[in-house]
């Protein structure tokens, strides 16, 4: 199948701003699914609210556009009810880690077999450019006219600590790596987290005078480095990308089958 066969082409061009990284993430995602050769009927995409969440409208899967921050909770219900389905849960940074932070850590803790995709542009775009828990310090936003003092989460460290069994990071500059990582994350049995650094030229870029979309993407090239690289040792400020965690742990739906077996055994 061609990449466009996974899209609901009648809704394109999409509503994202010119140069928005979310379109690149959508591209990487459908290319990953094409590589995996998944059937459209076996995929359920669950999204929350915000710019990122509109991604579910553009893909020809079973799509569930939910409420702010709760995508993983809805996805949990779908997955436990029908474990054979592939769950993909794209979320924005505020969606996943502010209002949805609790669901994020608990989904990771359970190790449900699903893929959480954090489309991190460090800003609330839909509401016009407020800072998020991934903005970090010293960032300008419409609610941080004197720059942020809030420290940001490190999604990778958070996901690792919460128990995710696949944790990776890429960027919209490194599109081939991003596609490859998303494919691996979907294939992974267990809870996978992929953070994609994405650009919001309209709000984050403009407010912080980083330049246009291409300049923001180039920033990702200049400020990231492969995990454990020599460059990282020389410049600890660089953001590492790649696969941080990939391990097999008991998966929730499979463990639940053991509960059913124990319950039925006890009754007979």
């Amino acid at each position: 199948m061609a990449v466009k066969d996974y899209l609901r082409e009648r809704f394109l061009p999409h509503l994202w701003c010119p140069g928005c990284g979310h379109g690149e993430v959508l591209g990487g995602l459908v290319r990953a699914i094409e590589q995996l050769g998944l059937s459209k009927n076996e995929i359920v995409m669950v999204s929350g609210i915000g710019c990122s969440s509109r991604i579910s409208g553009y893909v020809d899967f079973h799509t569930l556009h939910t409420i702010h921050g709760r995508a993983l909770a809805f996805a949990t219900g779908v997955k436990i009810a029908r474990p054979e389905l592939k769950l993909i849960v794209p979320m924005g940074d505020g969606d996943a880690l502010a209002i949805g932070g609790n669901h994020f850590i608990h989904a990771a803790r359970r190790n449900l077999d699903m893929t959480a995709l954090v489309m991190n542009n460090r800003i609330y775009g839909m509401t016009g450019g407020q800072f998020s828990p991934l903005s970090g310090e010293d960032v300008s936003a419409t609610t941080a006219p004197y720059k942020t003092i809030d420290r940001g989460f490190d999604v990778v460290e958070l996901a690792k600590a919460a128990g995710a069994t696949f944790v990776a990071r890429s960027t919209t500059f490194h599109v081939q790596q991003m596609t490859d990582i998303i494919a691996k994350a979907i294939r992974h049995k267990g809870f996978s987290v992929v953070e994609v650094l994405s650009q919001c030229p309209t709000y984050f870029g403009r407010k912080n005078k980083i330049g246009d979309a291409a300049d923001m993407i180039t920033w990702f090239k200049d400020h990231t480095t492969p995990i454990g690289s020599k460059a990282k040792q020389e410049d600890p400020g660089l953001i590492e990308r790649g696969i941080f965690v990939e391990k097999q742990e008991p998966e929730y739906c499979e463990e639940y089958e053991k509960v059913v077996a124990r319950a039925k055994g006890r009754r007979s």
Partner: protein
Amino acid sequence: MAKPKLKQHHINRDWCKGCGICVELCPKKVLALDEQDKVTVVRPQDCICCRLCELRCPDFAIEVETQE
């Protein structure tokens, strides 16, 4: 493996939003924005078919077709 050879760039002008990502990040400066801020191919002979424009286009507006 032989290097892929360009057949054609397919540009979907309806979907292109003129963000310029493909233009600025093309390693061979093959693309440009026209007077309507839509991407256009100005130096096809220099294209190395790396497809980065296609992969980085947020709007699915470019497809690089190569010869078999």
